[in-house]
């Protein structure tokens, strides 16, 4: 690689750190505020140096509230991911290895279901949920998230399955491995990293989904997104508490996102950039 002059490299680095610092600042500031007292948090002169208190974070976890919503988030995002994989893996396998002249149309059609804005079906979905007793239930939310994530999962899996050399499956077929055996014993292990990346993307998307969680849940099944939204009410304006709850709500997903950024690109662009 061409080596840039040291001075250029240094000044570009300084610029880079300024951009990175500004971009990350709100998250940094939120983390700082989460270890302040409420009085420190609303101080009109921002405090950067103070004795940190972990009371807010501890209260959040001990108080029970947070754990209830976090449990919902975990159940809903993992449940919908499992369901999307269960439906998506066989479909992607069939399309990647046994394509027909309709496969391309089918993939595009699946993609087009993602184009439908949620708000276009809010009314019927809400009424169906109300009549079926699904409002404010985890199973209802799992169902919606599964449907929302299925097209993305299929596309991403399809793109990863295509990377597995066909010869390997071909050889297994010659040795008499059946249709399902090829999928279970060869494709799944070979494409495991891709499947894991797909799972992580759908977990991240479900964890952060706000339209359906806010409209279809109220308390029993409300995930963290809806819990944080409750801080917008006038009674909820405790900023240290808000920051503590926010920090705990985003930390696991931020960690996941950071670990898998490169694979996520493929899923987020429907396989078009990788």
């Amino acid at each position, binding site marked *: 690689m061409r080596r840039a002059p040291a001075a250029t490299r240094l000044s570009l680095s300084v610029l880079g750190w300024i951009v990175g610092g500004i971009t990350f600042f709100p998250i940094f500031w939120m983390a700082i505020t989460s270890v302040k007292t409420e009085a420190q948090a609303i101080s009109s002169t921002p405090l950067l140096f103070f004795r940190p208190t972990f009371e807010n974070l501890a209260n959040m976890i001990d108080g029970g509230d947070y754990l209830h919503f976090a449990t919902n988030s975990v159940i809903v995002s993992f449940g919908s991911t499992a369901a999307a994989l269960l439906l998506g893996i066989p479909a992607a396998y069939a399309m990647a290895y046994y394509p027909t002249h309709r496969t391309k149309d089918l993939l595009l059609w699946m993609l087009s279901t993602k184009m439908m804005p949620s708000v276009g*079906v809010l009314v019927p979905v809400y009424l169906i949920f109300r009549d079926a007793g699904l409002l404010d239930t985890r199973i209802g939310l799992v169902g919606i998230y599964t449907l929302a994530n299925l097209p993305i999962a299929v596309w991403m899996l399809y793109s990863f399955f295509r990377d597995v050399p066909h010869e390997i499956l071909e050889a297994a077929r010659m040795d008499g491995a059946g249709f399902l055996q090829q999928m279970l014993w060869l494709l799944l292990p070979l494409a495991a990293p891709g499947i894991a990346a797909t799972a992580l993307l759908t977990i991240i998307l479900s*964890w952060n989904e706000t339209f359906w969680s806010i409209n279809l849940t109220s308390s029993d099944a409300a995930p963290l997104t809806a819990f944080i939204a409750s801080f917008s009410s006038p009674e909820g304006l405790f900023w240290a508490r808000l920051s503590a709850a926010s920090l705990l709500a985003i930390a696991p997903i931020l960690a996941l996102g950071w670990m898998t950024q490169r694979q996520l690109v493929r899923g987020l662009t429907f396989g078009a950039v990788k």
Partner: protein
Amino acid sequence: MNAVTMAHAPGAGRGTRRQAQARTARQARLLLTPAVSVLLVWMVVPLALTLWFSFQRYNLLRPAGGFAGFDNYSYLLGGHDLWRSIWNTVLLVGGVLAASIALGTLTAVLLDQPLFGRGILRLLCIAPFFVMPTVSALIWKNLLLNPVTGLFAWLAHLVHLTPVDWFSNVPLLAIGIIVAWQWIPFATLILLTALQSLDQDQMEAAHMDGAGPVARFRYITLPHLARPISIVVMIETIFLLSVFAEILVTTSGGPGSATTNLPYLVYKTALLRYDVGGASAGGIVAVVLANIVAFFLVRSVATSMGPRGLK
């Protein structure tokens, strides 16, 4: 279908290979069926119901209803709310898109340079994309943009300016800033990944030939980024057309209807005014708008599925 294929299956010999192929095709279809059928139901049933409701006089508070013809639509199209919300939607989508492409490209090109601590910088620059919308909206509103105790107010005091009351004076801009903060990192992430697949030899050759940094950016980097940029534009458009939570937790669409976009208008009509018919008509308008965008997206993705497939 099963029985038919079985009946045609020849007894033995040359037929077995065909038979095996037919069985495989059938099994493949079987594996596809669950995914395709749930998506088909999801695609057809709710939308058909929305369409049906949009022609009904149907308010949850008034049981009596009936066929409304185009009343819901003419009420919607004749009123001020819909056009205001479409305009707000267009401003929000357009503004955030412009910001993400411009700043996302610049950040990606910068991060592609041999910087000190590039790995960490990359993490810092993409982090906001993983923050849930309700968190980013409330953190920005209360910790940063609050006119009394926010950090921006303090900065304004430092330089002897009057702090801006963002959510009263420029509410749509305030929401735009929050949404852009979430989506610029998406553009950065995608474009940086694309940049890293750029052929370094070509860059090297251009450098040898005396092309300066601006020329190299203009004639090599930018053409290479054209397709990823168009993908970012279209994917972001899909998501930005549906911005909802950021509005709900900051302004609730106000003041007045200054920050009511199309999704928020439908939400307000349905779940706050219980007007199922009117909300459904609004939902149909949103679907039509999204489809105009989707038409271009699907076409562009289809083009990318050339002979080399989706690789």
